[in-house]
């Protein structure tokens, strides 16, 4: 049985924790709004880019001469995985969800006997993966210094990937990130970016209007594809940051509520033991008086 003093101390400590989580929730909510806005603003660019590429790739008739970024190297030996996580913790299941998804994929690949290379973006992912997959991690990038997500950071990652692809260091490239659905749910996603997946090929056949190309089609495509990699990564980073804030907001909201419950419980316990102490004292006085 803790003493009254101990209980009082615990209550104050839980209360101050509650204040912190509440403040964090507010900050996350403000940041979430901004991140969401950014994600929405960034959408037209990647959509347009995708459309143009779909239109172009529909016109590619000869897969032999098509750029390798589009059709792949023809081998499937080495898989490169880009795992995008956050730099900060206290955001609920945000990071572990991505890691879980990524780990499943890693296991599948290793079972098939293919080799695995990992690039982690964001320090939390690196921390969680380095123990099990330390040997496979070839690069760890973190953008702690840049306050907002900007395109140049994404382009840095994109250029790194393209450089490695041109050195034939891998055949497949997949990115892992959290897609922002709403504040409560973020869905971990795996998106293959090299070679490019175009799932809705049927839809774009009627879009295939007779474009005029300047310079020629192949050159445009081979120029556009590297840009598209950076764009996709940028999109993933935007989605990720919105998800991170959303996830943190929910986590902190839960924490605040739990702290509230705990304070209630502790207060009841405190009052009970205070009452008990008073009763005990009373009994002592009465029995003292009786014995006289």
């Amino acid at each position, binding site marked *: 049985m803790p003493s009254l003093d101990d209980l009082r101390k615990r209550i104050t400590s839980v209360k101050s924790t509650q204040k912190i989580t509440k403040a964090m929730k507010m900050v996350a909510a403000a940041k979430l709004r901004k991140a969401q806005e950014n994600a929405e603003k*960034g959408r037209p660019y990647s959509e347009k880019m995708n459309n143009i590429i779909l239109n172009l790739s529909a016109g590619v008739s000869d897969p032999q001469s098509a750029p390798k970024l589009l059709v792949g190297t023809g081998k499937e030996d080495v898989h490169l995985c880009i795992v995008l996580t956050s730099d900060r913790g206290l955001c609920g299941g945000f990071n572990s969800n991505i890691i879980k998804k990524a780990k499943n994929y890693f296991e599948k690949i290793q079972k098939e006997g293919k080799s695995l290379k990992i690039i982690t973006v964001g320090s939390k992912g690196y921390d969680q993966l380095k123990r099990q997959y330390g040997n496979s991690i070839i690069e760890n990038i973190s953008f702690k210094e840049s306050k907002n997500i900007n395109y140049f950071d994404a382009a840095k990652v994109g250029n790194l990937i393209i450089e490695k692809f041109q050195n034939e260091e891998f055949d497949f490239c997949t990115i892992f990130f959290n897609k922002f659905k709403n504040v409560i749910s973020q869905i971990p996603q795996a998106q293959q970016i090299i070679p490019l997946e175009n799932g809705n090929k049927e839809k774009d056949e009627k879009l295939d209007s007779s474009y005029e190309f300047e310079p020629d089609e192949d050159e445009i495509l081979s120029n556009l594809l590297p840009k598209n990699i950076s764009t996709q990564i940028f999109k993933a980073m935007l989605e990720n940051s919105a998800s991170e804030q959303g996830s943190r907001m929910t986590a902190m909201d839960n924490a605040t509520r739990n702290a509230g419950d705990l304070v209630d419980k502790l207060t009841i316990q405190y009052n009970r033991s205070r009452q008990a102490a008073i009763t005990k004292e009373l009994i002592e006085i009465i029995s003292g008086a009786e014995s006289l």
Partner: protein
Amino acid sequence: MDQFNLEIISPERSFLTKKDTDEVVIPGIEGYMGILKDHIPLISFLKPGIIDVKSKNENINFYVDDGIVEFKDNTLSILTSNIFDLRDVNKSKLDKIIKDTEEVLKKENIKDQERYILNQKIEVLNSIKFN
């Protein structure tokens, strides 16, 4: 004059949308092109240069580094990662960009094509500076 739509999109945001453009002159990779209404569908690249947007009331000029242009259904879409309005640019900023570009040019391992683009960039920026 017949009007068409223009949208300039950067990765971060939608930079400009206009519904009443009469003519747009863009720095295509193989030379400047003027786009008017009912142009045939087009996809092209930009080199460093000046986009000149002409509409009834105003003329706006933008500087772009690179970009992709698509014209379809009387909508001209320009995707670019580096763009600014010539009206809100000052000399020191231009000087800085020129200096940075010259730094890059000094490196030895650049391809001829990149060298050409970079030279073009310096030329355009200088011409902006002296206007």
